[in-house]
């Protein structure tokens, strides 16, 4: 069994599609287009929560832990170790934040989350790098262990404390938040005017300058740092070479085991930090089951982001955003997204039909688009139970449309043994 799993070539690609990295200007243009689209959607559907600064602040809060977990996945997978144990490391992080945060203060809590996450990473590294077992198997085991350790230790540590219990810690002291004076209220006024596009942009900017947690800033710094270290230093190049071709790396004198071990350790630490954010910033308390599968979603965000820091941020933002608006606006806001989905599917259908001459797929897509549009027109809202699944459906849809353009590190998931033929 190899963790890389079975790869099925879904389409026969005759010539590889031209792969261009987006330039800075293109990204800015794309962002403006996105804001424009959201503004249009807000005006057309009347769902104001689609672009309110409150929803966006919530989106950031939801995106940060996913982004940190995804960043953890990035480090590990760039070194060729699939890390499905992110969830377990995150759970360990939430407990670490709760325990050290309560007894030694919030900054110690953040450190505790980091250390506990690294502990999970160390187990994963021991199993996958030292002993060479299947990466996914080890990850699953770590998820079980992390879940159990957090529950057991929580019952041991928090029972009997004031406000604590076997499944939750006492309330934790908050970490500082930052608000830019003057700018934040001014943008708030502008947002209140509900001017097309301008207010939407103001809402986004306001979310970025109001009550921003220091951990969010740390997370952003870590994304930049990761990008620099992995792509601009010799250390990063060697680490990535372990994920692309460990044999070649070994012949060039890279100590593959050591690089992989370090990468998985860092991976665990980042996932732990993500858990720490959940406990210290999002909830101000450790609670059992707090992660709710965010480790897995972080992994999906990283895959969606094509194993790159920028894409990863996009994936987490998408997930955080869809989750935030469904949490705040419930079915009504998700209902507004249906219109977007309908237009998107119709567009893809037309493209398939006219540009690629694929009649069956085109007609099917157009039919699906019409159905979604009908759903939008006939109903007033989406049932809350469905609204809750928005982030997962969005992830699935995005992957369904984007997966074929993704390329993972060539040796990702393959156990590597020094001196053995692959």
């Amino acid at each position: 069994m190899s963790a890389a799993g079975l790869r099925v070539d879904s389409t026969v690609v005759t010539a590889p599609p031209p792969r261009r990295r987006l330039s800075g200007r293109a990204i800015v243009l794309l962002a403006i287009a996105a804001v424009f689209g959201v503004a249009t959607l807000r005006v057309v559907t009347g769902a104001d929560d689609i672009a309110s600064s409150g929803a966006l602040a919530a989106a950031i809060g939801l995106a940060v832990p996913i982004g940190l977990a995804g960043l953890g996945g990035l480090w590990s997978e760039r070194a060729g170790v699939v890390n499905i144990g992110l969830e377990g490391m995150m759970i360990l992080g939430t407990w670490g934040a709760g325990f050290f945060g309560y007894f030694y203060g919030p900054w110690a809590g953040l450190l505790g989350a980091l250390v506990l996450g690294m502990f999970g990473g160390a187990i994963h590294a021991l199993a996958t790098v030292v002993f060479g077992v299947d990466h996914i198997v080890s990850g699953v085991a770590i998820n079980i262990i992390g879940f159990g350790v957090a529950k057991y230790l929580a019952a041991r540590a928090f029972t009997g404390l004031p406000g604590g219990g076997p499944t939750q810690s006492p309330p934790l002291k908050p970490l500082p938040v930052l608000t830019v004076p003057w700018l934040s209220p001014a943008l708030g006024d502008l947002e209140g005017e509900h001017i097309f596009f301008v207010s939407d942009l103001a809402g986004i900017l306001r979310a970025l300058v109001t009550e921003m947690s220091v951990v969010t800033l740390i997370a952003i710094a870590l994304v930049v740092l990761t990008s620099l270290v992995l792509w601009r230093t010799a250390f990063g190049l060697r680490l990535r070479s372990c994920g692309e071709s460990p044999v070649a790396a070994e012949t060039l004198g890279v100590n593959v085991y050591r690089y992989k071990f370090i990468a998985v350790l860092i991976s665990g630490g980042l996932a732990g930090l993500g858990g720490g954010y959940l406990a210290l910033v999002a909830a101000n308390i450790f609670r059992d089951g707090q992660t709710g599968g965010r480790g897995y979603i972080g992994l999906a965000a990283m895959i969606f982001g094509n194993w790159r820091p920028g894409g990863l941020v996009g994936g987490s933002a998408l997930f955080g955003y869809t989750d935030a608006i469904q949490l705040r606006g419930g079915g009504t806001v998700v209902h507004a997204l249906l219109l977007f989905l309908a237009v998107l599917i119709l567009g893809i259908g037309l493209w398939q039909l006219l540009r690629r001459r694929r009649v069956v797929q085109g007609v099917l897509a157009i039919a699906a688009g019409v159905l979604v549009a009908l759903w939008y027109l006939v109903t007033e809202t989406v049932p809350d139970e469905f609204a809750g699944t928005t982030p997962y459906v969005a992830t699935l849809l995005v992957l369904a449309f984007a997966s074929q353009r993704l390329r993972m590190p060539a040796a990702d998931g393959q156990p590597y043994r020094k001196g053995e033929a692959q």
Partner: protein
Amino acid sequence: MRAVDLRRIMLALAAPLLAVLVAFAVTSIVLLLAGDPVAQVWQQLLTSPPPRLVVGIINGAVVYYISAIAVAIGFRMNLFNIGVDGQYRVAAFAAAVFAGQGWLPGGLNILVALVIAMITGALWAGIAAWLKVQRGVSEVISTIMLNSIATGLVAYLLGRVAVRAQGSNATSTREIPEASRMPGFALVAGTPNKVYALILLAVLVGVAYWMVLNKTRFGYDLRATGRSESAAVASGVNVRRMVLISMLLSGGVAGLVGMPLLFGEDFAYGDTVQSGLGFAGIAVALLGRNHPVGIAFAALLWSYLDQQSNGLQIKVGVAPEIVLIIQGVIVLAVVIAYEVVRRAGLAMERARVARELAAAKPAPPNREGASV
């Protein structure tokens, strides 16, 4: 040859034994560090269970067994079906709704409900299969997403069809008529509790799994694809078709996971239904090395630990979650132990071949080509 075989068996037994020992040691260390009474915990976990618990252990193992077989079908060809959890919940809901209507008489009602469960589970798994085959989406991610979507879907549909039980806030589907219930067999003396009648279903699933994998061409293709995809393709296996079929099979078996509970204990699908059985199935399948008999032992061990942990809180004052740590460590230790043992076996084999070659006359260089 005989001696080698004996050695192989010893090696195969060494791994699980080693794993249990490691789990024992690690858990003891955790308990020591946390300041809990180590000896008493083990005493509680290792006392022989009373008849009531024995029934509980068997029943729990029945459910884990089916779940693990569902996972194992995927494993055998390198497919990671993490979605068993969602598949069995969607399927159990569909079967409960159908059986609750009581359209068909007694046994027939059960039979058709089982088929419906299998079809529903297969369809839910089919989404992931289609996404993998057509769109290249990793089944690991898609099945995880589908688990969450299943939760929302079932909650929504349950809200539509549910009847409110008298005097409680719990909602559930309509109860299955008396004639279609299977309370089970009183296999264990000294307790009124009964072993699920659908233990027979678990046995059937296990036998079918073994037969299909080892005695059919499909099973051969499946194992071949799991061992070496390129070799399978070269021998004419249509991998995309294999992915689709095995995912559907896995989902179909996953659909049966909730059935013993539905017909033997709950008689309806409510919002109190047990979740997480699919994840336990992954661990049990790993522990049992995807072998129908191995999985049976693993399921029993898993269920034994579950049931024995219930007394921990009351009798020893230790959180029963310590058992989760034991289970996780066992899984990890087992895979590590197998890897170590496999390598040790390889080394021994190499040493044996080298010995035999050394004992034989050294061959002149020009004959080397013929012997390769």
